[in-house]
């Protein structure tokens, strides 16, 4: 539909945050959010892969629609995402070894991040054009990073708290995520346009 770019960006960043409202990318969200130092690079790496995946998916979708090969969409998306992760890894290793050292270990994890495939699938389902798709992936990545960083900073702080042993671990992360999600509900309606 005719959503403006700023609407899409605000929606994916805040109101329909990928992690906190759409539950995309939860595995890394719960797994890698233990330390602030790793959360930010992970978020940036994911955003970057999302952008690449979104570009590829856009082109691929044009191609598949032109040849009426819709049934190959899922399989080709996942293959493209897996190989673009590989490609990003190789390019990074060659041209920016420092960045590679910082992000390298997260890249393979991103292949099975449902947020990345989610970007590709949702932009197709919503019939976004090129600019909309790019904005969607950027906003999604930024939203993922925001949620990850917030979560990591909270969890780091709670390491000093005497959290009951029963609650420690994933349950605590989930409750924190629930509270963050509750907080983000306050953004509902932002960017709705009067």
């Amino acid at each position, binding site marked *: 539909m005719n959503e403006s770019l700023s*609407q899409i960006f605000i*929606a994916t960043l805040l109101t*329909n945050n990928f992690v906190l409202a759409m539950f995309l990318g939860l595995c890394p969200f719960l797994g890698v959010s233990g330390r602030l130092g790793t959360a930010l690079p992970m978020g940036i790496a994911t955003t970057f892969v999302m952008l690449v995946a979104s570009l590829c998916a856009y082109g691929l979708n044009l191609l598949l*629609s032109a040849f009426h090969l819709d*049934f190959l969409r899922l399989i080709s998306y996942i293959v493209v995402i897996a190989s673009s992760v590989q490609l990003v890894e190789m390019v990074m290793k060659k041209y920016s070894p420092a960045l590679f050292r910082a992000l390298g270990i997260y890249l393979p994890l991103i292949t099975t991040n449902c947020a990345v495939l989610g970007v590709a699938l949702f932009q197709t389902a919503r019939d976004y054009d090129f600019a909309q798709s790019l904005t969607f992936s950027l906003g999604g990545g930024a939203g993922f990073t925001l949620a990850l960083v917030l979560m990591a900073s909270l969890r780091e702080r709670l390491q000093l708290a005497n959290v009951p042993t029963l609650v420690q671990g994933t349950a605590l992360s989930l409750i924190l995520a629930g509270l963050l999600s509750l907080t983000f509900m306050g953004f*509902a*309606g932002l*960017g*709705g346009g*009067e």
Partner: protein
Amino acid sequence: MNEPTPVHTTPSNKIIVTMGLVASICGVLIVAAYESTQDAIANNKRIMVERAVFKVLPGAAKVSEYVATPSGIQALTGNVPDGGVKFYAAYDSAGALKGIAAEAAGKGYADMVRVLYGYDTQCQCIIGIGVVSMRETPGIGDKIITDKEFLKNFDALDVRVNAEMSALMNAVKVVKHGTKQNAWEIDAIAGATVTTKAVGRGINESAQKLLPLLVPHVAELKP
């Protein structure tokens, strides 16, 4: 588990053969599934569209898909062309045109609110709406389905097209609860203003685009 094995690489022709084998198995499976479910899916989609259209245009018995473009209207085949607007023409069992249905969408409280509205070509007004999809707050936003008073707005919502056939004579507008005066205004639901406005904006946008293209060609619609 992963004992350090001496580096041994599989010859690339073996890799290619295996991948080819796997790919062909998968290809066969997908195509088989696609072919065998195609009819059922098309049938399901048709039933779904019919059910939605019949709800907003009571008395209809048959639906066909059309597209309106600046150069006229034609039956829809394949994708909707750029600048075209998709709509449904509904006929009663005798084959007479019962009305037009089209989709409208507006940004609501949580996400896009998508509705289907029924348009009567005689009175040039909207005579019913149904929700296609929405994620509004249950208990508040979903009043647009349940609130009888609100649905009365769509008994005969005026969407006449102006003489130049360029836009609606009066834009559809959402007004504060209890202040509806004109037939082209929608009386908002108290406490669910955001969702109501989304519906109003969506209908206005869609009608402004579709009706000027459609009205000059209504006579061409035949079952």
